[in-house]
């Protein structure tokens, strides 16, 4: 087990609750089999927030779906690796056993809360449903718990709003409902898949604050899927950067922000606009992410990388550890730094 971070003041990190080893997810497409996740490794410790950072198509949402047992099948399939929750491999358990993990031990919050809630059922019903179905609570008791959960996610006048339908809630309030629903069975892990992408900036900040406070109260671990490096910097204890189905760099948030050691991460950092460069062109990473049916050989990033060599074009880089916790899948990890 890796040592807990020493400079942590907010909380002390606990044991590893989830370990993903060499995960592979394939999708059957008309153009052939696409490997959406190609050997992802990460772990999650009790009470921490791990941000999985990447562009759309990088495989970050598929990773979340794989952990959650929600890879759409067909066309998707977990073709290799393991997802260890304690000593149980979630890839190999039955669908029935997986349903006792979903919601009970790992819960999920989705990107677009408005379409992710059932328009035909009251929010109270949807929040209370796991309690009624899985814990056998009576209608009245479940309703009471639903109101309490709504108060916990700071929905004003929860007792009046419990019988309202999702269309009567704003985007931010819908996301609070989603979070209340996810918290119902007191899970150890919360996966938040772009939870604030569809929201206004001010509402975004409120939802992030809420998640942070709830984490402090419950001690649950959070996997935060995001494309927003700012969100990751603000929320995460550790960051895993994904590119073309692989984790290219991972480590404590300070290391990723201040000592990025993969050209892709450096490119992401450089593309953040700052106040000083107000009148300059925004910097960007040249080129576009690869089409997943034709991932470049060797290092998938090499066509966009300024320092790519023949080695990069032919050989897939292994993870190089710059510190016990900070790894980068670049042949030149020890040399690349951000100017």
């Amino acid at each position: 087990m890796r040592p807990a971070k020493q400079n942590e003041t907010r909380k002390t990190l606990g044991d590893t609750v989830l370990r993903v080893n060499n995960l592979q997810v394939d999708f059957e497409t008309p153009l052939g089999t696409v490997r959406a996740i190609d050997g992802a490794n990460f772990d999650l410790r009790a009470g921490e927030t791990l941000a999985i950072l990447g562009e759309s198509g990088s495989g970050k949402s598929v990773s979340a779906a794989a952990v959650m047992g929600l890879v759409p099948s067909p066309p998707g399939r977990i073709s290799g690796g393991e997802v260890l929750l304690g000593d149980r491999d979630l890839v190999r358990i039955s669908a029935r056993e997986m349903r006792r993990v979903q919601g009970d031990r790992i819960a999920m919050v989705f990107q677009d809360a408005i379409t992710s809630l059932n328009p035909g059922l009251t929010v109270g019903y949807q929040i209370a449903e796991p309690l009624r179905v899985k814990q056998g609570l009576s209608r009245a008791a479940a309703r009471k718990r639903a109101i309490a959960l709504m108060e916990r996610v700071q929905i004003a006048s929860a007792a009046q709003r419990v019988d309202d339908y999702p269309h009567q809630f704003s985007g931010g309030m819908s996301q609070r409902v989603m979070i209340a629903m996810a918290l119902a069975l007191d899970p150890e892990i919360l996966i938040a898949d772009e939870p604030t992408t569809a929201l206004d900036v001010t509402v975004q900040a409120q939802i992030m604050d809420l998640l942070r406070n709830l984490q402090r109260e419950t001690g649950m671990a959070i996997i935060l899927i995001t494309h927003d490096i700012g969100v990751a910097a603000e929320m995460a204890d550790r960051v895993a950067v994904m590119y073309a189905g692989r984790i290219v760099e991972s480590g404590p948030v300070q290391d990723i922000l201040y000592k990025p050691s993969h050209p892709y991460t450096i490119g992401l950092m450089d593309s953040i606009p700052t106040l000083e460069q107000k009148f300059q062109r925004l910097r960007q990473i040249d080129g576009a992410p690869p089409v997943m049916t034709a991932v470049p050989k060797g290092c998938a990033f090499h066509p966009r990388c300024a320092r790519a060599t023949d080695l990069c074009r032919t050989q897939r880089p292994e993870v190089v550890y710059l510190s016990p916790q900070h790894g980068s899948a670049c042949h030149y990890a020890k040399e690349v730094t951000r100017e």
Partner: protein
Amino acid sequence: MFRYILRRLLQSAILLFIVLSVVFVAGRSIGDPAILILGAEADAASVLQLRTNLGLEDPMLTQYLRFLGDALRGDLGATYRYGMSRGELGGGLPEGRAALPLVVERLPATFYLAGVAIAIAMIVAIPAGILAAMYPRSLLDRAINVISLAGVSVVEFWLALMLVLIFAVTLGWLPTSGYGGIAYVILPAMALAFRSIGRMAQITRSAMLDELAKPYIITARAKGLSPARVSLVHALKNASVPIVTISGDEIATILTGVIIIEFIFSWPGIGQITLDALSRRDLPIVQASIFVLVLIVLIVNLLVDLAYVILNPRIRLR
């Protein structure tokens, strides 16, 4: 809610008025009732006498207003000849029974047959459609496709005759025709329900497939709910609007189909009396049964609209 119902009632009344007008015009176009009553060999004087007595010599507008006024009071005229001999008519005003009660007293038999047919259709089609959507490309899914294609292609009276041939004549399990208990109602109800089963199963299936592809289904699955619960609680609640719509349409279809089926099975309902009246040119009876059937369809549509409000909370009422 109250204003919504009021508005829908008003719309229904306007529709009923239009239908009555069409019935009036059609009724004046199928031949002279006086000649129909008296026979082609009657002399011109008595035909004119009867036409005057029937009010057919009045201007069209007067006839139309009188027709509407009578209809408003529930008087759709008296039967020309139903249940009486020609001699009774003489040269004077027909003293036949009022048409509307004659039709209305046939309603229980029709409701019995149509009700059983609708129940069969819904009980078979809706679960079949749901299962087909839950297991796409399964054997059941394919079977429903074949049955619904057959259902829309087969003509009802042919199917009715085939059912009689197989189950009544060859196998002898059920009576060929007549009115009575459950044994009598099975064949006509099946003949009526068959077409609706296919269509309702198709609509249910596609409505369920639409809903099962929506993001909230993934949320429901992420909660660790069973596939049955995800389909039957989460998807079905939202798929219920198109299912109720098609059910309402099929009730109307069955009510029109009932006319020919009642005739084939000698079922003493509104359909039988209507066909009978048509062949005898007994206009008031035809008018009354069209009026009653349209009224029933309007009521069914009104109930379907009210069901939407209950099933879909997003329908706002003003």
